């Protein structure tokens, strides 16, 4: 793998997508970079400085070497000049002040990913480790932590040894796929990618333009985006078990059927404010009944027991909110976004705009919920049948 080339490709793509700001325009991926190791000694990533000719620029990129990091691009940082030589000299100076024992090797180590330190070794054994820039000694390993206990703020831990094996395998697969995609794309056309240039990258992807990178839609008064602003309101649930009541309230409010949550709770069999209860699993279908009854059958409601992203998208495009049941909770969905970066076969991000009645009496608007990390149990749709 040519780290410099992969770094250039990733950075150009991010700049092209507008994720990286204009300040990155024209920066050059300077050199092969500095190896940064895991505590177990394996190389984790290369830290590659970014700069302009004859000009020091405070930016660098971390490109994965070890597949367990999940993808070639680990991080892009601004604000610090990455000067390996100067940093090693500063580390040596700090070590001398601490009367370090004789050593034969110095290397950069991610002692707590992404925190980096300089490790001093003698015959392969550590004699000192100083945190980068603060030059404070990183404490030696403490006793074994409890299962799932996170490391403390200033504690060393091995990314490769402590990450669960299944996670490492999953990330490695993702890494290999991404690298293979880049290698395929880059082998097809000759392009200089060591300098970041949105314009040049646009030419590179030219044949498949116009490409729509994101497709998003939120509820409006009408389907004309230019005429109206989004029109949907959040309702907090009034007890800890009235998420369904609040969800039904939000959908009915959208159609201008204004009921109190107490009234809807009564219809849904959710008890009273003083003695509330949730909707039992076996009573899910009651949501359909209440949506229809409380709109005097003007709404035709339906329940879907196997929700999928296309259903959410179709309903939102039709300007209709949905109620979404997830295990133990209910919310409404009022928008979606979908990343369509088909250029490199990357997994697209799919997100939902969720009006969540939790916490009680407040609620939150979630923009966005990662569709691929959530479990969807039911959806309820409602469409106007009478006008």
């Amino acid at each position, binding site marked *: 793998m040519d780290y410099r080339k992969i770094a250039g490709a990733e950075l150009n793509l991010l700049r092209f997508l507008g994720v990286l700001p204009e300040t990155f325009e024209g920066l050059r991926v300077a050199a092969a970079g500095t190896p940064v190791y895991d505590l177990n000694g394996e190389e984790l990533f290369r830290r590659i400085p970014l700069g302009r000719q004859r000009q020091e620029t405070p930016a660098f990129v971390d490109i994965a070497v070890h597949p367990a990091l999940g993808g070639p691009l680990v991080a892009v940082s601004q604000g610090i000049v990455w000067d390996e030589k100067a940093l090693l000299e500063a580390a040596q100076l700090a070590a001398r002040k601490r009367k370090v024992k004789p050593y034969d090797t110095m290397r950069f180590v991610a002692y707590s990913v992404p925190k980096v330190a300089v490790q001093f070794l003698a015959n392969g054994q550590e004699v000192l480790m100083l945190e980068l820039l603060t030059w404070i000694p990183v404490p030696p390993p403490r006793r074994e932590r409890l299962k*799932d206990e996170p490391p403390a703020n200033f504690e060393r831990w091995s990314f490769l040894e402590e990450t669960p094996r299944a996670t490492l395998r999953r990330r490695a697969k993702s890494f290999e796929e991404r690298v293979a995609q880049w290698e395929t794309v880059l082998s097809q056309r000759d392009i200089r990618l060591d300098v970041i240039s949105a314009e040049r990258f646009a030419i590179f992807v030219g044949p498949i333009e116009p490409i729509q990178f994101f497709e998003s839609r939120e509820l409006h008064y009408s389907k004309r985006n230019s005429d109206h602003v989004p029109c949907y309101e959040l309702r907090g649930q009034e007890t800890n078990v009235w998420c369904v009541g609040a969800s039904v309230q939000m959908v009915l409010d959208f159609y201008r059927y204004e009921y109190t949550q107490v009234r809807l709770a009564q219809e849904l069999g959710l008890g009273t404010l003083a003695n509330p209860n949730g909707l039992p699993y076996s009573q899910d279908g009651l949501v359909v009944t209440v949506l229809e009854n409380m709109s005097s059958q003007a709404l035709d409601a339906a329940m879907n027991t196997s929700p999928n992203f296309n259903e959410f998208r179709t309903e939102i495009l039709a300007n209709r909110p949905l109620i979404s049941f997830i295990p133990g909770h209910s919310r409404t969905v009022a928008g979606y976004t979908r990343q369509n970066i088909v250029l490199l076969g990357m997994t697209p991000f799919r997100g939902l705009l969720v009006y969540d009645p939790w916490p009680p009496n407040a609620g939150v608007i979630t923009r966005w919920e990662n569709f691929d990390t959530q479990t969807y149990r039911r959806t309820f749709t409602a469409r106007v049948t009478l006008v």
Partner: protein
Amino acid sequence: MLASGLVQTPLARGSGEVLEPVPIHTSDGGGIAGWFIGIAAAGRLAGFLQLAADLAFRRSSSFQRRPPSLEGCPEVADWLDRSRILDRARTRATAGESLAEPFLTYDQNPDRLVWAVGVTDPQGRESTIYVAGDFVYRA
């Protein structure tokens, strides 16, 4: 992250303060189920990021009804000051009950974030009080 525009920011693009991540524990208080990262502005909790235990992005949520207004957003302390959370839990405790240290967890679903406060009554019976912002209830 705020500057990138990937996450909705409280006041203007790139504004707001990203707070220290707080672990979201499993309901027994043992394992880590995810991470809560508050986004604050002017002492208010404008929103938060929620990551899964493996740091996968789960959601980005906002308390703001009409950005950039912070009206209705809870105070940061409502969600992150353990002593205030404990004070809130005390309002639901009865005489003689002792309260344990609160920990951030969830009620039934990871999207229903709460602070759990263990309660022990004089007879040694244990129960839990949940605190979600200014809403307090018994489990």
